[in-house]
């Protein structure tokens, strides 16, 4: 299935070579932010608000400062002297670095204690006496727009209520008309609750300002170090932090998943503290700070799907209320406040669609970051995939058959979706057929009929999703104005070994291996001879970072094109060495040879050596190339997932019997790594589907802010995943690749939800919001029985 152009020793695309980065992690020699220890380093701990909404009456630092080892207590008033108490969010809203008068959510940073030791810093934080006047918090987003709701952001000019923005796309009138005229319309309000990525490493920073060189060195848990450097220069330029003086190093990162894209207030305070004190300052979040101060999802989606009585889909409409907390800090491209949510029309061919969204402020933590998915794609896919299943149930049609009858056909690509995307490629039919064959769909259908006859609850759930990843193109996509391209810089040394640097940053995806494989594929230099370096803004070329499955679509493409530039230069050198015209030189992986005389050849290593020792007269010496890749389109990975469950009617317990995931991510660089990414994404799919959700009470208190009660799946909850592929290359990507790591997080929740609801359908249960927990199932069963 994975055809390889290179030998296993060269290790180009398609080889499951073992990862080059493993050794240091396996021996405890990784270098994560909390491992960084600098001479004279101070430690910072945050004092946080116990209230969701309160006025700060006073902050008494005295007792804290009296503790031996506590050096400073930094408040919003202190930062206000430098105009650093507020910062812009990625979507040009504003977020407090530290408050001067009001706290807007529970656990918000109130002030920071700097001490010589982390234990003493904690003592200091305990000793700070903050007096609050609590106010009635706005917790329910549906009440945020009530007339008597308090105005949460009076600081914003012209802000009259708690409405942040309205967004819409599509033709409302035509969609409404199609829905009104349809034979069948299914409706549902679907909530995707707040969840948190909960990477096992929390967020943190070590900031070290050198007053003599005026250099600010920052070790940061960042998926996007270059963009953060620019933002920092823009925000703190007025106090003297100039971009060339800022060096951000994103060292090894213990999982990102989107949670390490934003700038958190703690980063800014630590940087400011180091700047003011002139010593290194470390701040590492504890787990509760991590879980409570950011989020993904929180969309309430009112969906309507219209179809003929035979199940031909005609129109889809979705109206969403988004709870953004007290500021819109969604990590989305500027022109896309709802991210790629308009992918919500799914894998199906129909004409009419309309999507709209209203975002509101509440007294909750800001966030709106991803949870291992491209900007808001999970919400979109959940909406359409639940609704397609609901339609199938409503008209009594097999959900697989309904999907086959509505799929965009292979020959329709590039496909213009009703909400404006140009899907690049796919073979949805083949992908679903493969999943059905692998799971044994027909047999399970029979087994289900038998079990139902015995009164047992068994369900089969399908999800056939289309993702949209790999932003740019830069004409449409930017972060705070910075175009979303990415970069690769290759240096081939005289001995034919290479160093390549990228604007992205791996957080476990295996870039040190896969990028080397791309270069091995393009240049024929063994992947073991190629060092990969990312994450240091002083050395790596500028790029927008790793999130939204964009590394392979953008930086991977940049690597291929930069390598091809080198190959072109190499051809001239080879012609010079072989004393023939450049037109007579041909390339096969790893070597140039004379057309018709393959025995006359020069290897890429020969050519690299000659580039420094014996290059053609007039040629620029050296063997280096750089490329900044601005993609012409996004890529559209897709897949077909099937889940089989049994539900215990007595207890509500859910047993996932099988889960088959067929992904089409285009051409594959390293099948082992792709499979690993799919496994991980699937577990981060079952997590929100069955376990995770940040729960607030009416006062805005978070009720499950630790890993004791925020249920990250263990090996016991995580099923045995079965994976496979279809391969439909992206026609516009230089390698035909698409990106994969987030597809499973997008595709798994609806497959699981559809399976559980299918199991419960005989009882009359037609929808449940995720997380679908045993107690939720049990409640639904009791209610259904009472109604029956």
């Amino acid at each position: 299935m994975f055809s390889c152009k290179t030998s296993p020793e060269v290790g180009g695309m398609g080889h499951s070579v073992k990862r080059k980065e493993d050794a240091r992690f396996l021996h405890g020699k990784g270098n994560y932010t909390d491992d960084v220890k600098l001479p004279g380093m101070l430690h910072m701990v945050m004092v946080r608000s116990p209230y969701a909404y309160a006025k700060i009456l006073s902050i008494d630092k005295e007792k804290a400062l009296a503790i031996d080892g506590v050096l400073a207590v930094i408040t919003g008033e202190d930062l206000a002297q430098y105009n650093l108490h507020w910062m812009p969010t990625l979507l040009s809203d504003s977020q407090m670095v530290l408050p001067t008068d009001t706290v807007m959510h529970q656990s918000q940073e109130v002030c920071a204690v700097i001490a010589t030791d982390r234990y003493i810093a904690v003592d200091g934080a305990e000793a700070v006496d903050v007096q609050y006047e609590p106010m009635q918090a706005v917790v329910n987003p549906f009440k945020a727009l009530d007339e008597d709701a308090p105005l949460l952001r009076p600081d914003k000019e012209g802000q009259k209520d708690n409405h942040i923005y309205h967004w819409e796309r599509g033709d409302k009138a035509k969609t409404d008309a199609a829905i009104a005229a349809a034979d069948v319309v299914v409706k549902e309000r679907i909530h995707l609750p707040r969840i948190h990525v909960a990477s096992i490493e929390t967020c943190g920073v070590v900031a070290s300002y050198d007053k003599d060189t005026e250099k600010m060195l920052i070790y940061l848990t960042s998926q996007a170090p270059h963009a953060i450097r620019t933002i920092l220069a823009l925000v703190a330029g007025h106090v003297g932090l100039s971009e060339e003086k800022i060096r951000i190093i994103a060292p090894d990162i213990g999982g990102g998943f989107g949670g390490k894209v934003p700038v958190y207030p703690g980063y800014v305070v630590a940087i400011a503290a180091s700047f003011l004190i002139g010593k290194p300052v470390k701040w590492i979040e504890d787990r509760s700070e991590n879980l409570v101060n950011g989020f993904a999802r929180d969309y309430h989606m009112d969906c309507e799907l219209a179809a003929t009585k035979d199940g031909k889909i005609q129109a889809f409409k979705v109206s969403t209320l988004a709870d953004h907390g007290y500021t819109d800090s969604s990590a989305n491209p500027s022109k896309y406040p709802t991210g790629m949510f308009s992918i919500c029309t799914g894998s199906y061919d129909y004409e009419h669609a309309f999507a709209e969204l209203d975002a509101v402020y509440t007294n909750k933590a800001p966030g709106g970051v991803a949870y291992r998915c491209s900007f808001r794609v999970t919400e979109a896919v959940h909406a359409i995939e639940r609704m397609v299943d609901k339609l199938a149930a409503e008209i009594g049609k097999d959900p697989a058959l309904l999907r086959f009858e509505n799929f965009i056909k292979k020959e329709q690509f590039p496909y213009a979706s009703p909400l404006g995307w140009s899907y690049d490629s796919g073979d949805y039919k083949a992908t679903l057929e493969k999943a059905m064959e692998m799971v044994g769909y027909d047999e399970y259908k029979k087994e289900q009929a038998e079990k139902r006859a015995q009164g047992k609850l068994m369900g089969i759930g399908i999800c056939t999703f289309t993702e949209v990843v790999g932003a740019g193109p830069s004409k449409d996509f930017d972060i705070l104005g910075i175009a979303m391209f990415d970069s690769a810089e290759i240096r081939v040394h005289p001995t034919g070994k290479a160093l390549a640097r990228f604007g992205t940053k791996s957080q476990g995806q295996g870039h040190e291996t896969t990028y080397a494989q791309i270069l091995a594929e393009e240049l024929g230099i063994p992947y073991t001879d190629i060092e990969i370096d990312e994450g240091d803004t002083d050395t790596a070329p500028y790029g927008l970072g790793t999130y939204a499955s964009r590394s392979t679509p953008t930086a991977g493409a940049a690597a291929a094109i930069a390598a091809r530039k080198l190959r072109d230069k190499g051809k001239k050198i080879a012609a010079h060495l072989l004393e023939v015209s450049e037109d007579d030189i041909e390339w096969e992986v790893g070597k140039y040879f004379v057309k018709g005389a393959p025995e006359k050849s020069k290897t890429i290593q020969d050519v690299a050596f000659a580039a420094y020792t014996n290059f053609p007269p007039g040629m620029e010496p050296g063997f280096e190339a750089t490329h900044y890749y601005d993609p012409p389109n996004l890529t559209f990975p897709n897949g077909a997932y099937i889940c089989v469950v049994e539900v215990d009617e007595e207890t509500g317990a859910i047993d996932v019997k099988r889960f088959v995931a067929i992904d089409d991510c285009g051409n594959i660089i390293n099948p082992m790594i792709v499979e690993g990414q799919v496994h991980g994404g699937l577990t981060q799919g079952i997590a929100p589907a069955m376990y995770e959700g940040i729960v607030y009470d009416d006062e805005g208190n978070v009720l499950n802010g630790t890993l004791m009660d925020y249920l990250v799946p263990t090996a016991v909850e995580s099923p045995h995943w079965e994976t496979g592929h279809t391969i439909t290359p992206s026609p516009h990507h230089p390698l035909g690749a698409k990106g994969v790591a987030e597809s499973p997080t997008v595709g798994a929740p609806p497959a699981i939800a559809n399976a559980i609801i299918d199991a419960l359908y005989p009882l009359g249960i037609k929808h449940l919001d995720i997380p679908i927990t045993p107690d939720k199932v049990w409640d639904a069963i009791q209610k259904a029985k009472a109604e029956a």
Partner: protein
Amino acid sequence: MAKHKVTMTINGASVSAEVDSRLLLVHFIRENLDMTGTHIGCDTSSCGACTILIDGKSVKSCTYLAVRADGANITTIEGIAADGTNHPLQKAFHDQHGLHCGFCTPGMIMRSIELLETNPNPTEKEIRWGISGNLCRCTGYNNIVKSVQQAAEEMSKEKEATV
């Protein structure tokens, strides 16, 4: 803060230090001894990233005071194989792609050492339950299970060979 003298063996070397009563063993290892392979992922003993061996038993060192370890024999990820070599679990995690970001890996391996010590031929279910005190957010656990299976097999063979 009261100070206490502690002496323990860490990875075969004897270590003595004066420590605060409240100092956690994980901080003693990471901060005082500069061995940063043992990680911290939570503060509720939930994630297992800080797992080490104390007298052969896997222990979450974030919930263990340094003073309590006085006299103990401790092994961390840095001490399970001689420099330049791999413990069968390290080899297996590499072979089976049992790690992505690497943050949970030391804890997973330390836990798995005791698991295989007490149950040299575990079933898949026993492995899954055996590592259920250790969270991984990247891998989905399938390949971690396979890694432990591979190591179990290799360690059994090694044992047979030495008998």
